[in-house]
């Protein structure tokens, strides 16, 4: 009880300090001399966010870029860290896995999500069906890690299985299997978890887009005698193309940054590491901040084109409207 009171007090103090800072800003902004008041007001509103961003993102990003050129003890080593990344087998596995993740997850999550959205469109119980697939979105990656490690749990062939996946294998007369230990297929079993989470996101966004298709178009296609598949190919897909691209790019970015799933399920062992996880391992566990920074930089370079593409698309959409 005392502990909770202490923590509550910390929160109250934190909120009070924050409120005081904001109050002070508002006071200064209001009392500013008439000449130049507009400028003071603009600065007062923008400064807190911009200072935080400069200190917490812009500056660190620059520093990380430099850090990637240094070694264990902060000495300058040129491109050594990058050479390590692209030549050492353990680092190459990480890169390979990241590529596998980023190809498979967006592709499967979007296709399953799209198919599901089409299937349940105007079906009875649509809301419930939607909630069920969407629910994993609300669960943390760590929670999802527990859920799926339990699904994959392994017991020797002579024992009762407690993991459903292995039980299914046994039902089909197979030997139970170490899903998370056997490389290289274990990466795919981790990927399944990410697909499980992201499909709901794809489904909800695409379902909303499908509902936005003008009824006249659908009707016209129907009257022309288009089959369900033709309708899907020639009406649905082209109309929701924008949303589809957004979904794929968003999932791509999320997948590139995936950390928690790998961290909690295998900690990157058994050849399952990905760039985002390896970055943490190198920088905070192995005492190699230079390598960690280099990996972070590579991550940045991989995410950038996707975000730029997305931003462009967004601007185009705005122009159309």
């Amino acid at each position: 009880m005392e502990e909770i009171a202490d923590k509550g007090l910390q929160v109250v103090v934190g909120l009070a300090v924050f409120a005081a800072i904001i109050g002070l800003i508002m006071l200064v902004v209001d009392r500013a001399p008439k000449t130049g008041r507009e400028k003071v007001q603009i600065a007062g509103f923008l400064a807190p966010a911009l200072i935080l961003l400069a200190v917490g993102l812009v500056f660190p990003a620059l520093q990380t870029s430099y850090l990637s050129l240094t070694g264990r003890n902060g000495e300058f080593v040129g491109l050594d860290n990058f050479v390590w990344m692209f030549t050492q087998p353990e680092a190459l596995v990480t890169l390979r896995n990241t590529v596998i993740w980023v190809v498979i997850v967006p592709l499967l999550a979007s296709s399953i999500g799209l198919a599901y959205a089409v299937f349940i469109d105007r079906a009875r119980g649509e809301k419930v069906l939607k909630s069920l697939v969407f629910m994993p979105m609300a669960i943390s990656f760590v929670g999802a890690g527990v859920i799926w490690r339990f699904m994959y749990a392994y017991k020797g062939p002579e024992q009762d299985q407690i993991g459903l996946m292995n039980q299914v294998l046994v039902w089909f007369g197979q030997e139970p299997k170490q899903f998370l230990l056997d490389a290289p297929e274990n990466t795919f079993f981790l990927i399944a978890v990410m697909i499980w989470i992201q499909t709901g996101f794809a489904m909800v966004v695409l379902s909303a887009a499908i509902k936005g298709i003008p009824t006249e178009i659908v009707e016209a296609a129907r009257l022309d005698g288009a089959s369900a598949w033709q309708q899907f190919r020639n009406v649905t897909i082209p109309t929701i193309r924008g949303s589809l691209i957004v979904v794929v790019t968003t999932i791509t970015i999320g997948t590139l940054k995936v950390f928690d799933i790998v961290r909690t399920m295998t900690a990157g062992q058994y050849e399952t590491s990905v760039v985002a996880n390896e970055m943490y391992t190198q920088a905070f566990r192995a005492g190699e901040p230079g390598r960690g920074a280099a990996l972070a930089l590579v991550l940045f370079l991989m995410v950038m084109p996707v975000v730029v593409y997305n931003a462009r698309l967004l601007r185009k959409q705005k122009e159309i409207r």
Partner: protein
Amino acid sequence: MSTVPLENKDLLPDVEDDATRGRPTLQKRVRQRLTSRGATAAAIFVAVLWTIPTFGMFISSFRPEDNIKGNGWWNVFTDRELTLENYADVLSPGGSQSANLLSYFVNSLAIVIPGTIFTLVLGAMAAYMFAWGRFRGKDGLFIFVFALQIVPLQMALIPLLQLFTKVLTIGEFQLLPSGTYAQLWVAHTIFGLPLVIFLLHNFISEIPGEVIEAARVDGAGHSTIFWRIVVPLATPALASVGIFQFLWLWNDLLVALVFSGGGADVAPITQRLAELQGSRGGEWQRLTAGAFVSMVIPLAVFFGLQRYFVRGLLAGGLKG
């Protein structure tokens, strides 16, 4: 936001009754029925597939330890022994052996609530200026802030940690003391700002210009306009974005790992759960109950506020 109109669902006429409109042949109608039957079956199959993992874990969390470890949860239909002991065990603060999840649960709340409020307030203030302020370089600056989303968290972690522990420390005095929530609040606020500013800007810039102009003509300053007009009008948007930020912080692991130190005094529940998985990976009675404790709040938010959640997601989906 408006590219994906959610509410249209209710406005659309029911297209099921094609008999009254076109007149497809009987054969065609039968075929259409069949394909839609198949589609429904496929959809239900997927829904079941997607639900089973969570369902299995949920059931297991109520089974006695020996049963969980002895046989699969699907056996619950034959041996119906259920217990609340697992929950009592993971929540109770006894000894260093216990999972002590209640403490970490409180930590999560203590991290997430201020973290969300800070981000929302600062984000809304900046978004308001980007939408309605008049100054040179506004658009360029806004695009720059938007572009900061490119920077992965991972790039900022090492320098930010150094900043907190070295630069912001004068002698014994730490501006943001470690071993408290302060570092986590600030880190979460920083990482949340680019997206929150962008989303809120979209909403706030849609407030009719006449409203703002009228207030200005009456002599209201920016702070009055912001608190009296913009914030009340943008409340639904603030709620959507806030829920999203809340869930995002609640489910975070990476930031917590770097800034919390890991003790029961600061670390959030996700971190504790990850730890339990590493050290006691076979203790399923604790892991299943613990995972569910960590999911209670997000699931409650999800089912209780699904409308806002979805709206925030759609807006977020457009950000990329």
